[in-house]
Structure formats: C-alpha cells, structure tokens
C-alpha cells in the first residue's frame, strides 16, 4: 500500500461505515417518519438532523483516526468521509429512482429521496446531497481543529437546540399550563406547534453560550467554595436540594397535562420494574430475562381479587396490593429454586423460558376459566383512598411516587446491609463468595424474591391504572425494556435507572414516531453501550471500578 493510499484509508473506511449507518436509518424509515417533526420549524426536520449528526460524528472520527497529526490532512480526511457518506446516499437515491426497489425495501419511498436531495429533482438534488456531505465533513474537520473550549461550546450549543426541539412536546404544554401572558409570549417566541422557531433556536444558542461561559469561568470557584464548607453545612445543602427535589416531584403533575401525566406514570411503572431488576441484575449479577412474569403475576392477582369478573372476591385495591406483592415474592422464590445452579447465559435463557411459559399458560384456553384467556380480565376498580377515587393518571402518579420512594429506600438500605454485600460478593465471584461463607441458596433466593416483589408491586399498580389485564401486555419486550433501562442507565445505580427509564420509556411516548423504532434503537444502544461504556451511562462507583480495573491493570503491566 502506498503512503498516499494509507492517508485516505481512514476517511474512506469510516465514511463507508457512516454511509451504511445513514443508509440503514433511511431505509428503515427513520429519516422519513421523523421528517414530519421539525427541530427548527421549516428549516431542519428531525430525520435530517439525525442523519446530519451521524455524518458529522463519522467525519469527526475520521479526522481523529488520521494516522498523521497534520491539520490539513485531518481536515481533508473528514471531508473525504463526508463525501463518501453522501456518495452512498447519492448512489442509493439514483438506484431507487431508476429501479423499483420498493418491492423489497418498504422504506425506499419517493418521499425519502425528496428529503435526502433537499426537494430538488434530478442531478441538482444529487449535487446538493453531495455538497451537504462535504459541508458536514468540513464542519467536522473544523470542529476537530478547534481548541477545547470553542469545540465544547459548539457541540453543546447544537445539542441544546436538538434537545429543545426534541422535547417540545414536553416543554410546551408545561409552559402553556401557567397561562400567564408573559410565559405565553415566551412560548410563542421559542416554539411553534412543530419545533423551535428560528428565532427561538438562535436565542437558545445565545442563552446557552452565555450560561456555559459563565459556568465555565466560575466553575472552579463554586466547586472549591462547596468543598471548603464544613461537613454539616454540606449535609444541610444536600438536604435542601432533596427538599427542593421533593417539592418539584410533588407539584409536578399539577403542571403536566393529562397526556404528560400518562407518560410519567408509564415511566414510573418502569422505574419500579427497573429498581426491582436492579436488585437481581445489578446487585446480585443474575441476568433475568423472564422478569415480566412477576409483573404479570402482580397484575393478575390484583385483577382476580378486585375485579367482579371470574371470581368476584370483591377486595379493594389496598387489600389486594399486599397479597399481590406476597404472591410475587413467592413466585420469585419458586422460579428461583430451579435456576439456583445456573449461571450467566443459562440463567438468562431459562428465565426467558419461564417468562414465556407464564405467558403461554395465561393465554391458553386451558386456564381460561380461571385467568380469562386471551380476553383477559376487565373492570378492575381504581384504587380508593379514604373515599377518594384515584382515577386520573395524576392520582396514580402519587401512588407510584410513594411506591418508588419506598422501593428506593429499601434498595439503599439493602445495599448497605449484610445481604447487599453478600449479593455484590456473589456478583463478583460465586465460588469465592461461597468459600467466604455466604449461603448462595439463601442469597440468590432473596435477590429473586426482592426483585419479584418490586415487580409485582409495579404490576399491581399497572392493573389498577389500566383497569384491565391481557396476556398480550406481558410479552418478552417488557423484560427486554427493563433490562435495557438497567443496563444502559448503569448497572446497580439508582439514579441511572430513574434517568434510564425517563429517557428510554418517556421519549418513545413523547415521540410517537419513535415508538416504532424503539427496539431497533434499544438494540443499537445496548451494543454500543456494551462496547464503549459497559458500566452504563450513570454508573455506580463500585461497578465502574470493576469494569475498568482490569484494563488499567493490563495497561500498567504492558507499560
């Protein structure tokens, strides 16, 4: 290979990877269906924004991976990879326009070609596409050459626009709910009904830059001031922060509309599930893919006990709730016993099998007289608190909030207890843990039981919120969603789970178009997180150590 060739290798290679990625998200329809939603109204549809982000990222990587640290070559490499990406798309558009590939690829529609070529027909559109690619590459190249501060500023400012545009459906209703002239005016200034206004985008960039620079200049001072505080004062400020958080959480539903409250209750249910699975996967290191079984058990117990259908026990929600949780715990122990001796992959598959067995049994005609079969069980009454009917999602929110706080409290206490340490020892190495005198049977079963109990609690609330339960609500995807929350948020980390649930479950509810690509994106996210940051996005301190000590120790021995 000649030297000139090897210089462009990275640009072409990373460009090709980026090109295939953009091609894939175009072909699966993401660019098109996200094209209906704008980040900046009339200027930048979200689908295009995603394609641009991937292109810029790829070009940036190309510049970074250039073997020679000469600025002009790095810049040129970024441009080359940008060109390669757009070249892929250009070839695709030309093929798509001349042959009928829609027969096979359902996403290859004329609308997509229009989006990719900026609405310009013929050769002009192809040229525009290639030009966009080159510009992306050039932008990434310049970004790479910038110094640290301006680069961070640019990237974060652009991300701010993207996130503000993305969260429009969240922010706008909250602003509107105040219904004060001033805020209404501001909302109108920043947002249209579809994305930011151009003025809003520019304003938010300016505001963000000012804030960022201010923070950047004073960051050191604030931090050292905080560090200089005496211990009690620090504790006081933490308590104050907690109180503020609590107040926000308590008044939050008053500002959310019906739809957003609905979204937040779904997030809450998944937070509960995630906290439960966190005990099993995060603390004890047992990957359970049949976790939905306990959710289903919690739901069905509440349904059977409170619904007038089938048995008509006539209990109310509060009487059924503890029974549901106890049933969940018992089921956790019962399903835990057979898998006691299994580890890793086997455990995952066996639990996946259990989850499916439960679903198949509930769905079957055989158990229909007792469990309702495919029709499920309906008319489950809402929880009733001292004569107050909890009908609206806002009411369920408080129920969930109470549940989550309780579960977080239990999780934190358990983590620091003897059992928690036993779980973590087991997670690190079962054999060593056993040699140290830990009773593996009891420890494992406790982990399964605790996780199952939390899951059943979530299921119980779910049943009374929805008002009816069907076997189809309890498929394997629920388990996978919860696994994604726990893993991507950060194994073993409670804030990670809350944030993970909010992002992974909240976003698809807010962005309806996204819901269709949910598992697609989760799959990619799982792979990427495992490849780049196996401890998750908001890791627990101990876990972070665990994942990084090996590599660092390895690096030391090499050095």
């Amino acid at each position, binding site marked *: 290979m000649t030297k000139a060739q090897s210089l462009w290798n990275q640009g072409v290679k990373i460009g090709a990877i980026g090109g295939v990625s953009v091609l894939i998200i175009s072909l699966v329809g993401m660019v098109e269906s996200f094209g209906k939603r704008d980040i900046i109204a009339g200027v930048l549809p979200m689908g295009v924004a995603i394609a641009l982000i991937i292109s810029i990222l790829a070009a940036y990587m190309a510049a970074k991976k250039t073997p020679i640290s000469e600025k002009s070559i790095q810049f040129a490499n970024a441009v080359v990879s940008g060109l390669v990406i757009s070249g892929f798309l250009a070839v695709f558009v030309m093929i798509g326009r001349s042959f009928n590939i829609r*027969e096979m690829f359902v996403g290859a529609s004329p609308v997509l070609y229009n989006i990719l070529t900026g609405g310009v027909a013929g050769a002009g559109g192809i040229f525009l596409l290639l030009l966009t690619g080159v510009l992306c590459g050039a932008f990434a190249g310049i970004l790479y050459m910038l110094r640290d501060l301006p680069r961070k500023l640019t990237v974060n400012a652009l991300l701010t626009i993207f996130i503000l545009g993305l969260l429009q459906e969240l922010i706008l209703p909250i602003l509107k709910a105040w219904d004060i002239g001033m805020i209404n005016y501001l909302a109108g200034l920043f947002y249209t009904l579809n994305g930011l206004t151009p003025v809003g985008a520019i304003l938010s960039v300016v505001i963000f830059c000012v804030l960022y620079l201010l923070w950047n200049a004073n960051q050191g001072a604030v931090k050292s001031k905080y560090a200089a505080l005496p211990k009690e004062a620090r504790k006081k400020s933490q308590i104050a922060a907690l109180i503020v958080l609590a107040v926000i959480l308590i008044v939050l539903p008053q500002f959310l509309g019906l739809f957003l409250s609905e979204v937040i209750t779904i997030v809450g249910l998944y937070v509960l599930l995630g906290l439960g699975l966190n005990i099993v996967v995060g603390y004890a290191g047992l990957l359970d893919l049949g976790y939905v079984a306990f959710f289903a058990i919690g739901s069905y117990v509440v349904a059977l006990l409170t619904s007038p259908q089938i048995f008509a026990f006539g209990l109310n929600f509060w009487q059924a709730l503890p029974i549901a949780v106890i049933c969940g715990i018992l089921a956790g122990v019962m399903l835990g016993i057979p898998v*006691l001796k299994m580890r890793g992959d086997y455990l995952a598959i066996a639990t996946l099998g259990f989850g499916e067995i439960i679903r198949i049994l509930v769905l079957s005609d055989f158990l229909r007289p007792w469990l309702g079969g495919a029709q499920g069980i309906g008319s489950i009454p809402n929880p009733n608190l001292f004569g107050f009917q909890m009908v609206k999602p806002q009411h369920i929110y408080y129920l969930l909030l109470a549940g989550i706080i309780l579960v977080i409290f239990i999780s934190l206490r358990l983590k620091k207890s003897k059992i928690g340490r036993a779980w973590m020892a087991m997670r690190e190495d079962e054999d060593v843990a056993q040699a140290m005198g830990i009773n593996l049977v009891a420890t494992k079963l406790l982990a399964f039981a605790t996780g199952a109990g939390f899951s059943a609690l979530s299921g119980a609330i779910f049943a009374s919120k929805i008002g009816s339960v069907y076997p189809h609500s309890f498929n394997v995807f629920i388990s996978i969603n919860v696994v994604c929350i726990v893993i991507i948020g950060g194994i073993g980390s409670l804030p990670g789970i809350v944030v993970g649930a909010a992002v992974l479950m909240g976003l698809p509810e807010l962005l309806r178009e996204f819901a269709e690509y949910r598992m697609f994106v989760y799959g990619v996210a799982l792979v990427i997180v495992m490849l780049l940051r196996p401890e998750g996005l908001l890791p627990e301190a101990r876990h972070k150590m665990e994942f990084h000590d090996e590599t660092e120790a390895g690096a030391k021995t090499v050095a």
Partner: protein
Amino acid sequence: MFQKWKDRVTITDIVMWMIGGTLLLLCLWGSVSTIRAGLYTKSHWIDFLIFGLAQGSIYALIATGYTMVYGVLKMINFAHGEVFMSGPFTGYFVATAMWRSDFLDNHPITAIVAIFAVAMFVSTMVAFLVEKIAYRPLRGAPRLIPLITAIGASFFLQYLFKGLYGSGINAYPDIEILNGFWMIFGIRVLKIQVIVIIAAIVLMLVLYNFIMMTRVGKAIRAVSEDKEAAALMGINVDAMISTTFIIGGMAAGAAGVLYALMFKQVHFFMGFLPGLKAFTAAVLGGIGNIPGAMLGGIFLGLIESVAPALFLDGLGIIAPYQLKDAIAFTMLVMVLIFRPTGILGERLASKKA
C-alpha cells in the same frame, strides 16, 4: 451410608426432584389415559412423528450453529435466531420475483437452488458481521457483557429487518413440485416434509464431515478445545471463530429456507421461537457437541409434535397445542436442572457457564 447420603442432599435438591417427579408422573398418567381413550389412530401418530422429524431436523440445523459458537467462544449467540430469519426473509423477495416471472414454475429446481443460495449468503453475512462488530471487540470482557451485547444485536437485527422489509407476514410462493403426497411403505406423507428431512440430514452430514475431516474443521475443533494452545500451534484463532460463525450462518440460512418452505411464510419475528427451541435442542444434546445438537434437535421436534397430544390430552387439557411451546421450555428448564451436560455432553455446563 444413609447418613452420608442425607448430608449431601439439600432441600433444594429434594424440591427439584419433587418437581421433576411430579412432571414425569403427569406425563405418564397423561400418556396412559390418552392411549386408553384412543382418540388418535395409528395414522395420526405417524403423522405427528413425521411432522416432528421434519421440524426437529430444522431445529437440529439451527442448533449446530449455537453449539459450534458455544464451542469456540463459550457464549450463547442470542442473535442466531435472527441469522436464521434474515436468510429466508431475503430469499422471499427472490422467490416472489421468480414466481411472478413464471421462472419458479418452469425451472423449479434452479429456482429453489437460487433461493437457497441467496438465503444462505445473507444469513452467512449477518452471522459474520454480528461476530465482527458486536462480539470480537469484547473478547476477554466479563461474561455478562457479550451476553447483553448478543441480546442487543438480536433485537437490533429483528427490527432492522422489520424496518427494511416491512412488518407483515409474507406468504412464500407455492412451489408446484413440493406439493402433494408420497406413498412410502403404504403411508401417506407430505412431500415437503420428506424433502425437509432429507435435505436437513444431507446438510448435517456435510457439516459434520466438514468439521471432522477437513483441516479447517480440525482447526475449529482445536480452537474450541483450547484457544491459547491452538494459537501456539499456528492457528489463526480469530479467523477460525469467523469461520465458525460463517458455517453456523450457512446452516441457519438453509434451515430458514426449509422452515419457510414447510410453513410457507416469513416475517421478522420468525427467528425468535425457533432460535429458543434450537438453543434448547443444543442444551438437550450437550452444548458444544455437534452430533448432540443434531440429536437434541430431532428429539425436541418429536416431543413438541407428539407431547401435546400424548401427555396433555389425556390430562383433560383443552386445546393442548397452545401449550406446545411451554412444553419445550419446561423441557429446557428440566434438562438444565437435572442434566446440564445434556444427552451426549461431556462438558460440565454448570462449571463453564
């Protein structure tokens, strides 16, 4: 003697034996009462058996992929079910294109070969890329990590193909020569089932001989025995791992087409259940053991087709066929509890897993 035995047995052991014993008793009772009730005639049972054999030989082909990958990497390739799906799903478009141009009816053999070629190529590519992108960078990572990556890859692939090819259930075109019956020893059997069985057995023989006879096969076996030692003997371990995925992908692609020809439909989720079943088959036969996987696949296929009628009908269970997947999973769990090494397994699964 009794004291010694008492010390070794724990409560969980007893509970498990009770569960196993109860299930066994239920099966026996069910079989006896089914046979006494005489709901099914001899020809019914033969139909069940042949269908089970056909289905089982497909499972067996997929299971070889699981088992070989487990041999070399000591991990379960969760995405193997999607490798299985990707081939026939792509082949579907070739098949319909040929069907529309009447090529399928005029040159059916060539057409079927073409479908197989496309499907096997796509499955192979998917398997190869999954290994290269998702698994290779994680060699030596903690065990949980490649497992989670594999789950991610599995769902990514499912929804990638859903996005690319659409979410509908696509009917495979009818191939005239595969329709109808044959009379074998006076028994009427569906042509397609016989063809599936024969094709799968031929493919498995080829695969087994490839692994046992060729240099590459020998190298793969060496890698699954001991990676470091194999590397020291001058074997390119990474290349052999890739080759394993490629062979597994080819087998899965072929199995996928057989599955599609037998059940006449493809969709993006079709790999999930057969994948799980094939994994069960691989465990049943002893994971890491190729003949075991084949045997396990056929055994599982037979059980799945016979058991609902034989075991459950006699117990008075309505619509027993709804529970056939539950039977397969129960068997998986039972095997993992009582004989994790599988029927032919030498490796101690619980030790390695």
